């Protein structure tokens, strides 16, 4: 039985931790300077092509996509949020949502939100290219195998979408269409949607013919569905008991009952998921090393989250624009995002296995 994946040097848990830390980071701060540092770190990891063969040939497409969201976010926020002291222009009249002042504060906040979204997109791209689908499936509990398969198939869409986009762009040129502005780009959306749906349909048919997600006996499937409904009934009952003013212990019993039913449901679903694993993936020392950098950062972010003043990550441009705070040591800690890359670049990292 083979060990590990031939084309990725890190355990999937490393990338899961990395991804979770990034999501935590992006959700906790709107300081544009720190977000720029985070974006740069993720971009460097992406540009390095990830760390394995899986990620070879990192495309510029996600870079541009993640950066395109920044001006879009700024524009959308500036046109719809009319708060701030530094006014750029005023949209006259009574146009719903749009009329009012356009401020520099709204522009900056929108751009920051766009940057956060761009980071999430780019990070997902890196995750997708570094974690193979079987590794992704092993990350999830057995009970969610069906869900994981569906998710995995969805993951294959990202590269195919990019390929189809290029094909359609080229086809438009063959038909004499000049693609220059945003409006022209929008004309590609419908063909892209149609071809994506066709691809999805074909893939679904192939997977069905290959017997993916062969369900267990219809009887046990029915039992699982009934148990699920029973669990929902307990939750609903608990909620209604509070609504009707019944003693609190009634709701507590019902909620605990729901928890027990759902626990049993997951246990039974896991027993019914029939699949095996071809590769044995061991967690090695270099995985631990790569994980430690991101874990340290995650710890700092959690501490920041529970700190009553949240002093070192907080920033908002409202109501008046101020310079965002920037602590070099925070920026240094944010470099923890690069830890998988740094470990992969160690000259003798094989000895860490």
């Amino acid at each position, binding site marked *: 039985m083979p060990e590990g994946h031939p084309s990725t040097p890190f355990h999937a848990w490393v990338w899961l931790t990395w991804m979770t830390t990034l999501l935590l980071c992006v959700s906790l701060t709107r300081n544009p300077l720190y977000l720029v540092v985070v974006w740069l770190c993720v971009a460097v990891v992406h540009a390095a092509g990830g760390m394995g063969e899986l990620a070879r040939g990192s495309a510029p497409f996600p870079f541009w996509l993640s950066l395109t969201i920044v001006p879009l976010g700024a524009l959308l926020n500036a046109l719809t949020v009319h708060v701030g002291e530094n006014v750029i222009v005023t949209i006259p009249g009574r146009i719903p949502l749009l009329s009012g002042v356009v401020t520099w504060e709204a522009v900056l906040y929108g751009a920051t939100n766009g940057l956060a979204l761009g980071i999430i997109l780019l990070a997902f791209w890196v995750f997708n290219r570094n974690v193979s689908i079987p590794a992704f499936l092993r990350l999830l509990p057995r009970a969610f195998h069906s869900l994981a398969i569906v998710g995995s198939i969805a993951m294959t869409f990202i590269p195919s979408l990019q390929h189809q986009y290029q094909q359609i762009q080229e086809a438009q040129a063959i038909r004499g269409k000049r693609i220059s502005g945003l409006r022209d780009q929008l004309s590609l959306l419908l063909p892209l949607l149609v071809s994506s749906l066709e691809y999805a349909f074909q893939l679904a*048919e192939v997977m*069905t013919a290959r*017997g993916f997600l062969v369900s267990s006996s219809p009887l046990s499937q029915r039992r699982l569905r009934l148990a699920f409904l029973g669990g929902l009934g307990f939750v609903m009952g608990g909620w209604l008991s509070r609504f009707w003013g019944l003693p609190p212990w009634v709701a507590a019993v019902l909620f605990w009952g729901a928890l027990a039913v759902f626990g049993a449901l997951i246990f039974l679903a896991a027993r019914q998921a029939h699949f095996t694993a071809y590769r044995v993936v061991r967690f090695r020392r270099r995985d631990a090393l790569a994980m430690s950098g991101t874990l340290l950062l995650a710890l700092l972010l959690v501490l920041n989250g529970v700190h009553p003043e949240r002093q070192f990550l907080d920033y908002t441009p409202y109501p008046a624009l101020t310079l965002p705070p920037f602590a070099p040591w925070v920026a240094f800690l944010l470099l923890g995002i690069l830890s998988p890359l740094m470990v992969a670049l160690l000259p003798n990292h094989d000895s860490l296995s």
Partner: protein
Amino acid sequence: MIRFREVSFRYATAEQWVIRRVNFDVSPGSFCLVCGPSGSGKSTLLRLINGLVPHFSGGIVEGEIQVNGINPIQVGPAAMSRLVGFVFQDPETQFILDNVEDEIAFNLENAAIPPQQITQHLEETLHALGILHLRRRRLESLSGGEKQKVAIATVLSLAPSILVLDEPTSQLDGQSAEEILSLIQRLARQQKLTIVVAEHRLDRLLHFANQLIYLSGIGEPIRADEPQQVLPHMATVPPVVELGKRFGVRPLPLSISEGQQMVRKLGLERLNHRTSPVGKKQMDSAAGPAILSVEKVSVSFGKTQALSEVTLQLFASQITCLMGANGAGKTTLLRAILGLVPLTQGRIWLQAKEITTTPSWKRARWIGYLPQDPNALLFSETVLEELLLTLRNHGLPQERSTAERILEGLGLSKHALRYPRDLSVGERQRVALGAILITQPQVLLLDEPTRGLDEEAKAKLGDLVRSFRAKGMAILVVTHDVEFMLTLADRLCILDAGRLIDDGAPPTVLRRNQIPPAQLLQLFPDQEFCSVEEVLSTIAEAWSHTLDKSGRPALLAFHSDGNRPHRPESPPEVR
């Protein structure tokens, strides 16, 4: 093993039956070939075997189907997957993972095969298909043929007793198609599988088949029997069979060796050598000025040199075919001509105007380019709108009458208001052709235009291309289809590793470059026959007799057992 009794199927919203009252049996270990024109219901028939129809597509099924004693309609495709391995047309859409080993193992993991056995299953399957060397390869690095082999390996890894292949070569280029057809032949010889395959290229598989199912059209009665019984009723057959039919030979020759035997028995192997008109045509055409000139064009992708100093001229009223192995740079040359890939060196001229730096969307006004997948060009709601869209893109007046005239010429008038993607493969291709021809380009570039077309659609396409030639267009066709090329080309060019290595009359160039020749060139190696009609007229001419009403040489008297004919002493007698 497979039993259909009075089986009919129609889609829920349609009134017409796709297949109607079908009866046949396929015994274990048989090789069953399913053929018929596009849209005749072949795919539906195959999908009924594993229950994809109606479970995946919806629809109404009548009659009884048994596959190894199981009714696929009752148990569904997922449960049938261990019994029936199903391979689809397009290898691109059959994979989830990145590399060959993982893709096959993933299938076995999901079938809950114990991990210790997965390696064994995997290696046995790869070995059986002769692709053990691809085990560690990334799927995106494989050719179309290799991908389709991996798709076959994936389904065979679960050791099904029936292998169903739905036009497995229709989305492949010629060379990849050859690889797959060879593999199917080998599987039929070596494995004890029951194989059911729908395929347009009968010439390669016919002599392996012990059963032939012919669907003549949607809802029409089907014929299912031994090939010798079904072939006489088929409208389009491979040239060697067609010759046998025309000569009245029984049993019909199915392979080249049987065809050669027939030629020997009929005493046709020493026909007088005739000069092909092809070379002459080329000389005549080349006398005029070039419409398109490619001068020392080079293209690189990173460190890979895709084209090296290619020089080529295309002339008015001339069809030039371009052949070469996969990766030789044929498609790149077409794309370079249209400006879809940047040149590292060289210049391109359209008549007297240099267009090397002209953007693609402007070149498209004068150079029509039909890529391998015509679907990529279809965006609009209706066929008519598709043609008008091109005019709109080029800023030309959107004259409905012009579009309608072109649709009429393409035989698409009745489909003018239909959604283009709902049409058959051949019809979609003609819509895409219409969409690029409406600007009346001077040059037409066709990339593998016969991919996925049945014989009838291929013949229609050939007629169309010839009509474009008659209008003065300069045409460049990239193809692997030697039979099609011979019926069409005035001139043949060969591209090898990015270099243009030969250019001349098709049969001569074919011989010089040792390209596997067409069936007729194999039957008559000293001749330059391009069609069965040419063979018959040459025989008639040689014996100074005319053809009878059925196209048979009037004085050839054949015995039903295929004995050598004799030349009567009496004057010609036309029957």
